[in-house]
């Protein structure tokens, strides 16, 4: 388990991480979200022991990263932002270096290297120097070094950045497979990734947690959760039609396509109710479907609010 207690990190006068507390347990894949500069990378740098916290503590399975750094770091696999690797080494040389540092020798080391090279499909570039590799391959070399020792905690800073859609899918698959008995923390700015791989998401803004929950829970916080989208074939005063219906919170007209409307729910599914009304009153409906709450809506709402709060 990773425990983060009242973590604060300042750079000169700027507070990058502000009194952050959360836990991540085995089997959880935590998506770490936030706008650029929200403190995602800084938090990860502190968790992995690269930066010392200004205040607060981080423990990995009971090992304090400040007090027992070697024991804690041995449990962590880390892919830093941009996946830095020693460019003058070949993929194989680099992974052998990592294997030795991680304490593996001889056959065990070779078996593990072969294993991770298979996992992230690096066999074809085993003898190429890393600086000559494409961005996608470099990222995969970075991933390979992070998972080589089968770490208890996997911290990945934007693992799919710069990968093509197939590679992204492959990496997500890999994370899902790895996650079973591990703690995984993934930072990303691709929200669909959170829905695809994470069991939990934390959104931070200005160094503070502004949302924490499963992707489904967060989506439910969207004002568009359970909303119904309707496209009409003819003229109709939809807002007037729906006035006074208890389950309905409001109606929004699309700014570009004037025939499209979004009917907002007051909290419960309203599809059945709306379709019943539509049939009773013979609305000229052309399209009719339920909209899911989008993580993006929630993300925008919570991070924008924090911005205005700060300004006020």
């Amino acid at each position, binding site marked *: 388990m990773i425990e983060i207690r009242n973590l604060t990190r300042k750079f000169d006068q700027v507070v990058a991480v502000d009194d952050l507390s959360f836990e991540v347990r085995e089997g959880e894949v935590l998506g770490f979200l936030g706008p650029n500069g929200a403190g995602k990378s800084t938090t990860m740098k502190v968790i*992995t022991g690269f930066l010392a916290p200004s205040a607060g503590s981080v423990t990995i399975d009971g090992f304090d990263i400040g007090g027992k750094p070697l024991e804690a*770091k041995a449990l962590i696999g880390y892919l830093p932002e941009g996946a830095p690797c020693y460019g003058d080494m070949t993929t194989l040389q680099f992974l052998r*270096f990592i294997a030795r540092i991680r304490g593996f020798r001889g056959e065990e080391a070779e078996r593990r290297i072969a294993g991770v090279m298979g996992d992230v499909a690096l066999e074809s570039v085993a003898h190429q120097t890393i600086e000559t590799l494409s961005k996608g391959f470099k990222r995969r070399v970075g991933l390979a070094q992070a998972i080589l020792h089968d770490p208890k905690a996997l911290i990945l800073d934007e693992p799919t950045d710069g990968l093509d859609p197939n590679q992204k899918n492959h990496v997500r698959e890999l994370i899902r497979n790895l996650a079973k008995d591990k703690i995984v923390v993934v930072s990303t700015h691709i929200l669909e990734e959170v829905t695809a791989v994470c069991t939990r998401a934390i959104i931070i803004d200005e160094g503070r947690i502004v949302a924490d929950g499963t992707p489904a829970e967060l989506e439910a916080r969207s004002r568009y959760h359970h909303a119904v989208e309707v496209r009409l074939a003819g003229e109709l005063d939809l807002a007037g039609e729906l006035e006074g219906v208890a389950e309905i919170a409001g109606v929004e007209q699309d700014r570009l396509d004037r025939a499209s409307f979004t009917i907002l729910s007051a909290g419960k599914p309203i599809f059945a109710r709306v379709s019943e009304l539509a049939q009773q009153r013979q609305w000229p409906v052309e399209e009719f479907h339920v909209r899911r709450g989008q993580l993006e809506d929630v993300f925008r709402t919570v991070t924008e609010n924090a911005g205005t709060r700060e300004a006020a």
Partner: protein
Amino acid sequence: MQKLSLNNLGIIFRRELMGYFATPLAYVFIVIFLITNGIFTFELGGFYARGQADLLPFFGFHPWLYLFMVPAIAMALWADERKTGTIELLLTLPVRLADAVLGKFLAAWALTGIALLLTFPIWITANYLGDPDNGVIVASYIGSWFMAGAYLAIGSCMSACTRNPVIAFILTVSICFLFVIMGSPILLNAFPDWTPQAIVDAFAALGFLTHFDSISKGVLDIRDVLYFSVFIAAWLLASAIVIEIKKAN
């Protein structure tokens, strides 16, 4: 959980040394080092004209030769790690900062040692032409290598200060120059007459030349070796402190 490795220092040392030879850097350094040593010794140093079978002209130039050669290897030690971001990778591995600082330093020091050893044809020449005191020569080689270590340790610290290797190079050359001239008459004569002799002596005692002069004459005094060892240790400690402080930017 796998066992913690106790020989990380050695692993880092090997990786760094391998890195020098994976790029043209090591070869360029060694070739230029040998050529300039040859020119200094035989042309400028008057090796033949002196008519003496010793390597005094060879070693006498080393403080000035190192002034430009050694910072060239040292400049990338940490600046490159910062620039490419690998410092974040290295320092989040289960490695002590001390192992990393020392491992990288020792690899660079080994490279200067290799370059120094490859000057053996000059030593053979002296033995072919005359009958030099080989004990003196061995002592001088050791002393020269220790002095190179002192230059490198300054370079390690300066390289940790910046992510720009060129700035690291210039800073290193400047500080090394200061330590070279500290023990030389140029600087010592600049002290006003009323300065207590003790201060002048203390100042001179900090300079490289004071310690290297006796070494190059074959007097391998334990105090001179100790001076360079403490000097190296102090600058490496400073490197570690600077790395720790500057990690954040």
